[in-house]
């Protein structure tokens, strides 16, 4: 990208149709210029968003996050519109293009700081570093439950307030009245004493000539008008009439279709390929070998093995052609890998604990254990998991004449553009990426492997290609949630205190705090043993929190059980120093009627996990009917800090719970002969309506910063369920998926899963 001058990012532009792009925005791009002065103000917060106002006084928020149904675009528009005092009925939202100007400076800030407040004196330095970083990293990530709590908090609210401030200044000057005498409401400026009233658009051009404040006055919670309201999402109407555009729906003139098979053995390659039978399938146009590819990046790097692609005049012909290929793969030694061999190696790594690194080490754990009278230990394990988004991976690429245009639904448009440019040997400016709605993401769509494939196939055939993966390919070429063991030991005080907590697990990704517990324990030693993974790993909704939520919240339940204590009361007593956690736990228990006894064959389980800035407790209620588990309901309480769109937040909790329960009950990817065994929804099951419990969500607006929504509902689901099964049956299940250990009802009498 070229150098940005201050004018370029602050001034207005006239849009087609005569509207104005108000110059809030504001992301100083290059520190080399006069821009540096802008950055250096003490305590300043930079704005990262665009606001457009058109001739009909319609306000458009341009948001740098993708939509996969999590509702972030609507929530971000709420944050901007509220600070702007916009007329919500005339607010629209657009997704920012994949251009460097929209790289996630603010995401980077949140990512590196974990949302921590900075001492004002170091802000300018830090801001400068972050800007350079986000430029070079091409961050435009939707993930980590970041949109509202980072972009919204640091970007959209500030942008809205700064725009309002400029509009007021412009009106004050034009009307020659004091700034403080002007009020704003419903996208209109008022001077009550003189009876003047003008829509925002009247002053948009004048405002755009001004320098925006980086630290505009933000509203107090009591003054929120749009934030905190359960508004309807912008994306929903198009999703009920078939008009919503997903990547699979893109139609480009002269487009053909392709489907692929990558080496089923991870790390493998083509040994022999005879495509003669495939080439005579009606409609097949070409068969192409795609080399092994890789992309090195701070976030979302990947490698992808050698692949064969069949190009045809339709997906069906391409798929038939693929099945007609005679292809043999060689595994480079990996063909002997299996779930059993991986498991044996991990168990050995755990036992030997070579290079164990402590996540936390406080108190003298060893001597506490040596002196303790009541010590319990347990070993837990979770399997690999696939994401299985509803929309199989697909992308449409048109690579001709040194340019690439690509249509895709992804979680990191800028990162994908960079990966595609790198693979083609193009400059980033020669790659145009159009991001569409994602049919699910869950972390899978942050790795650009299939985007690169689509681009390479298009280049090979010299025309636009829509690459569509089969469900089988999607299942077998994922970047999986790790499967791993975790072992625990705890020293229990007879008074209910937790004297020592020791935990060792294999492999670590993020967030770093995932294995930590909120409970008071004087001596703690939590650590991990590094492990090379033969299976490709990636972020899966809530990342490491998903497994550690299960491990830690089941083992703390075991601690309570070992003392004959009530699982809720035991936890509550250990949360005296954590009032927010305690309030969440108590709210969930209270709403669930924790102290109301359930009948024979029924049980309640509780679990608590803080993740991605929100604290969530879930109570699961189960019945055992004819030996099968029925989940009667889930009661959930969440400290969201502040839920910008309460209904959207609740929907995300419901979604996170079902995603977590599905994985807990059924989810398991296994490896045989170096390759994934499962292939489709018949052997990698998803929870269906009949088995899905009602979910009651109770939101606590504690007044803290907004927390994440997309992920925090998932981690407590599995332990709440496993703990409920223990309460109902006395059976403690320490390994997922649960259906290997106890049958689950499908919700219909007489049929089990």
């Amino acid at each position: 990208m070229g150098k940005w001058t201050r004018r370029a990012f602050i001034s207005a532009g006239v849009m087609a149709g005569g509207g104005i792009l108000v110059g809030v925005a504001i992301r100083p791009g290059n520190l080399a210029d006069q821009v540096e002065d802008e950055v250096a103000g003490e305590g300043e917060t930079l704005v990262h968003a665009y606001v457009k106002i058109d001739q009909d006084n319609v306000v458009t928020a341009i948001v740098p996050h993708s939509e996969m149904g999590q509702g972030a675009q609507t929530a971000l528009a709420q944050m901007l519109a509220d600070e702007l005092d916009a007329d919500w009925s005339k607010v629209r939202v657009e997704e920012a293009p994949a251009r460097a100007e929209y790289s996630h400076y603010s995401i980077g800030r949140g990512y590196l700081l974990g949302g921590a407040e900075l001492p004002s004196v170091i802000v300018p330095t830090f801001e400068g570093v972050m800007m350079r970083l986000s430029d070079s990293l091409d961050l435009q990530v939707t993930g980590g439950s970041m949109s509202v709590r980072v972009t919204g908090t640091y970007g959209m609210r500030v942008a809205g307030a700064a725009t309002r401030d400029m509009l007021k200044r412009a009106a004050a000057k034009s009307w020659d009245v004091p700034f403080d005498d002007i009020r704003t409401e419903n996208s209109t400026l008022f001077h009550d004493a003189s009876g003047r009233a003008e829509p925002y658009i009247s002053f948009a051009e004048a405002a755009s000539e001004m320098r925006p404040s980086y630290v505009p006055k933000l509203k107090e919670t009591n003054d929120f008008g749009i934030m905190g309201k359960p508004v309807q999402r912008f994306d929903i109407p198009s999703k009920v009439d078939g008009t919503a555009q997903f990547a699979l729906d893109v139609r480009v003139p002269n487009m053909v279709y392709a489907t692929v098979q990558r080496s089923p053995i991870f790390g493998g390659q083509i040994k022999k390929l005879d495509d003669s039978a495939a080439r005579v399938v009606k409609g097949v146009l070409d068969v192409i070998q795609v080399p092994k590819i890789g992309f090195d990046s701070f976030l979302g790097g990947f490698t992808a093995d050698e692949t064969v692609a069949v190009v045809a005049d339709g997906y069906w012909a391409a798929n038939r052609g693929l099945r007609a290929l005679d292809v043999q793969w060689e595994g480079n030694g990996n063909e002997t890998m299996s779930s059993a061999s991986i498991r044996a190696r991990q168990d050995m790594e755990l036992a030997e604990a070579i290079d164990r690194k402590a996540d936390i080490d406080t108190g003298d754990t060893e001597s506490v254990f040596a002196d303790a009278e009541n010590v319990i230990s347990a070993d837990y394990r979770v399997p690999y998991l696939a994401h299985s988004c509803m929309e199989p991976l697909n992308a449409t690429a048109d690579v001709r004449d040194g340019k690439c245009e690509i249509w895709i639904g992804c979680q990191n448009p800028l990162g994908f553009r960079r990966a595609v440019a790198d693979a083609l040997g193009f400059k980033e400016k020669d790659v145009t990426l159009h991001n569409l709605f994602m049919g699910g993401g869950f972390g899978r769509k942050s790795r650009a492997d299939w985007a690169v494939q689509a681009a390479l196939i298009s280049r090979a055939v010299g025309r636009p290609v829509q690459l569509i993966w089969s469900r089988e390919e999607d299942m077998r070429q994922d970047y999986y949630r790790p499967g791993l063991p975790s072992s625990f030991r705890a020293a229990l005080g007879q008074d209910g205190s937790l004297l020592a907590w020791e935990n060792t697990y294999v492999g670590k990704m993020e967030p770093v705090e995932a294995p930590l517990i909120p409970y008071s324990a004087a001596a703690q030693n939590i650590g991990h043993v590094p492990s090379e993974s033969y299976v490709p790993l990636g972020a899966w909704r809530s990342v490491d929190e998903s497994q550690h939520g299960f491990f830690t919240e089941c083992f703390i339940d075991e601690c309570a059980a070992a003392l004959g204590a009530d699982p809720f009361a035991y936890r509550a007593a250990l949360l005296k120093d954590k009032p927010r956690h305690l309030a969440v736990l108590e709210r969930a228990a209270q709403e669930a009627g924790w102290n109301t006894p359930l009948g024979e064959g029924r049980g309640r389980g509780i679990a608590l996990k803080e993740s991605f800035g929100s604290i969530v407790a879930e109570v699961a209620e189960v019945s055992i009917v004819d030996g099968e588990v029925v989940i009667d309901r889930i009661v959930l309480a969440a400290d969201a800090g502040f839920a910008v769109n309460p209904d959207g937040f609740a929907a995300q909790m419901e979604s996170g719970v079902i995603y977590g329960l599905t994985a807990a009950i059924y989810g398991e990817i296994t490896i045989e002969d170096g390759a994934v065994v499962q292939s489709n929804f018949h052997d990698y099951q998803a929870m269906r309506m009949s088995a899905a419990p009602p979910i009651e969500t109770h939101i606590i607006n504690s007044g803290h910063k907004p927390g994440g929504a997309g992920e925090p509902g998932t981690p407590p689901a599995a332990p709440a369920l496993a703990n409920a099964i223990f309460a109902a049956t006395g059976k403690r299940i320490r390994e997922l998926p649960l259906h290997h250990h106890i049958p689950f009802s499908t919700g219909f009498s007489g049929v089990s899963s």
Partner: protein
Amino acid sequence: MITLNINGDRKTVDADPDTPLLWVIREQLAMTGTKFGCGIAQCGACTVLIGGTAARACVIPLSNVNGREVTTIEGLAIDENTPHPLQEAWIEHQTPQCGYCQSGQLMAAAALLRRNPNPTDDDINRAMEGNICRCGMYGRIKAAIKTAAAQMADETLTPAASEEVTDG
């Protein structure tokens, strides 16, 4: 050449007779509301109505629908200005998240309400069992179906008769 009666229009397509209906709808007729999810009738994303009954278009060969009446999400609305009550209820309950499965969910629900205007929870579970929602919006889908059923009952009942019906 095979003739389809799709959303009230007659369309003639030139495709291999064993091509699944899904790909003909999406690629030849350019109606992209019907989605591809699994290819083996396990997820329901491709659900359409054939003769008013829910069917998985990803496994129905084109030859099986020759001359039969096919309805896709594009043909669900009552008319251009009147959405189907299910579509209104879907918005009221803010049902979709990613939205990718929702065309199929709506068509499965439409088939249910055609044959059973007043479904119980168990009826709904059975009718919707073939439709996966990975965003897990089952509670909202079920609530929206009930709302739509109640709405349709209200519209078809005379004021006198409506007193006899207490729930949808």
